[in-house]
């Protein structure tokens, strides 16, 4: 990498970076219009959807008379799980649709697939960070005192979740170009993740055999990290940021290579 930089005029790289940032910025702005623009409620939907999930599951927990592990408050317990999971899934979803949804834009030579995915990922990350803050803020009115343990750990968890989603989106996007079947089987393939990503349990509360199996799922690690950051008395011993990092590295490597492989196919159509 350093060798590559040395052979280039330094100004070119900076120029390229600035241009790319401008493109990503413009695309992100455009996405804010297109993502929620058609719907009257617009951005509110991003907030309502996780809220419905939380409401449904809080109700289920109430009916089943089941406590949260370690006596965590039910709303943040579900919020940390649902928001993180939705962030990964939505980003992957949006990323995989990046080419199909913006084919017109790809005619501009400045716009690349990676830019589309980065823009969508950044937007999702920002959206869900705000959604999480809003949910926790709303909940904070109902309890006497709220203490967030470590904001950095929490944000790190969300950031890794966002990157994981982007990596998944990048790979899926490339595969989509190769075969439209990928889009069909993505739903059934990802659906089980909803149940095994720790939305309604913590890794700590599982029997060892099950836990060891579920810990292969990087989303569970992200959720555990977010919870560790949020709850002062919860410490996820099994959350490994490095493991999620390895996933992200692998997915990006694979995704970026794939994107280069299939690039000509997109532009021909």
């Amino acid at each position, binding site marked *: *990498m*350093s*060798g*590559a*930089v040395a*052979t*280039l*005029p330094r100004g*070119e*790289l900076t*120029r*390229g*970076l600035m*241009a*790319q940032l401008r*493109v990503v910025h413009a695309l992100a702005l455009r996405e804010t219009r297109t993502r929620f623009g058609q719907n009257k409620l617009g951005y509110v939907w991003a907030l309502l959807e996780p809220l419905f999930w939380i409401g449904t599951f809080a109700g289920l927990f109430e009916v*089943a008379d*089941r*406590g949260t*592990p*370690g006596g965590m408050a039910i709303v943040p317990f579900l919020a940390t799980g649902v928001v993180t999971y939705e962030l990964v899934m939505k980003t992957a979803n949006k990323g995989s649709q990046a080419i199909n949804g913006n084919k017109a834009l790809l005619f501009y*030579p*400045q716009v*690349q697939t*990676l830019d589309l995915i980065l823009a969508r990922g950044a937007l999702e990350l920002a959206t869900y960070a705000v959604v999480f803050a809003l949910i926790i803020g709303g909940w904070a009115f109902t309890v006497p005192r709220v203490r967030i343990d470590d904001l950095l750990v929490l944000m790190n968890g969300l950031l890794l979740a966002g990157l994981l989603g982007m990596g998944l989106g990048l790979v899926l996007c490339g595969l989509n170009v190769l075969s439209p079947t990928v889009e069909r089987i993505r739903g059934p393939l990802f659906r089980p993740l909803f*149940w*095994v990503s720790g939305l*309604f*349990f913590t890794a700590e*509360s*599982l*029997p*060892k*055999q*099950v836990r060891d199996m579920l810990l292969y799922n990087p989303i569970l690690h992200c959720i555990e990290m977010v919870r560790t950051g949020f709850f002062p008395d919860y410490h996820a011993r099994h959350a490994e940021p490095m493991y999620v990092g*390895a996933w992200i*590295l*692998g997915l*990006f*490597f694979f995704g*970026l*290579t794939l994107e*280069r492989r299939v690039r000509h196919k997109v532009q021909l159509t």
Partner: protein
Amino acid sequence: MNAPLETKGPAVNTVRQLRRMRARRLVRRLGLGVVLPTILATLYYGVLVTPQFESVSSFTVQAADAPAAPQLELIFASVPGNAGRDAQLVREHALSRDMLKHLIENHGFIEHYADDSVDFTSRLDASSGSEEIHDYYLDHFEVEYDSAAGLLKLRVRAFDAESAQRFAQAILDKSESMVNDLSSRARTDRTSLAQGELERAETRLSEARAALTEAQSEGSELDPVQSAAALYELRAQLEAQLASARAELSALRGTSAMGSPEMVAQQRRVSALQRQLDEQNERLVGESGASLRAAISRFEPLVVEKEFAERAYSSALSSLEMARVDAARQHRYLVTLADPSHPSDATYPNVLWSVLTFLVLCFAVMGIGTLLVASVREHANV
């Protein structure tokens, strides 16, 4: 890669030279980004790092009334039950600062891990604060809890096999004494309350008995209630006899003449019975009966108190017995399933595995870096 080749002059414009340049760049890139770091990593893991030995042991906390292992609840697994509570306690204790202090004071923890023969990257900095030492401790000592089997697995990493085994054994011993303390304290807590209750009931009973005996020795009556009952019985008999004597007398009046010897005898009998009855009545309710009544009113509460005290005593006795059984059932003890192993080979570092991981990582980072740079560069060339 769309590098601006035209700036390099006309000499590179042949295909062969272009290929050769690309190959050179690739080799240089791989050399700098992958081969060199991998060689460094090999040197680090293979030569520099002091080998560490891992001692493994497993143990469990057994209760006298061992509950069944919890069911495998997958998705809706709830809070871990009480079965695992003791094991969790032991785990917390084994990783606590108390345990670390114990190891530092009695087993030379610092001396071993801060030894000069250990390489500087894995050595414990002897001057570091207690928080850092505890972090270091957590890096090298691990207690894993398997809730399905109720099993605790202790892993200790040290710089020689003997020390690893020694530290593991020290932790096991300390944990065992902690469990025993906990268990015996719970037992004394449970029984001491019932014991106190029993003692109180005992004093109450003996006091009630003493009071009754005293009252008996003071008065002439041994048991005034009994005497009164005997008197009542006597009176009832006399009344019955008087009634039948009177009936006989009235029958005689019909058959015998007045003044006949039978009549006279019967009349005498009636009056004698009447006199006797009056006398007994007098003893019960008259002037001379006052002492008896006083005795009864003095005795009655004492007798009742004695009865209550007896009942309280027997219930206290049975609750103590129950507390004892309960405490015996609550008894906990630590069972070592596998003694700390004595590793013959160093388990860490696993040179091959570490270097391989590093190699793959280098490739991934290199690849992503190259692709990202290429993508950035494309933006500049538009």
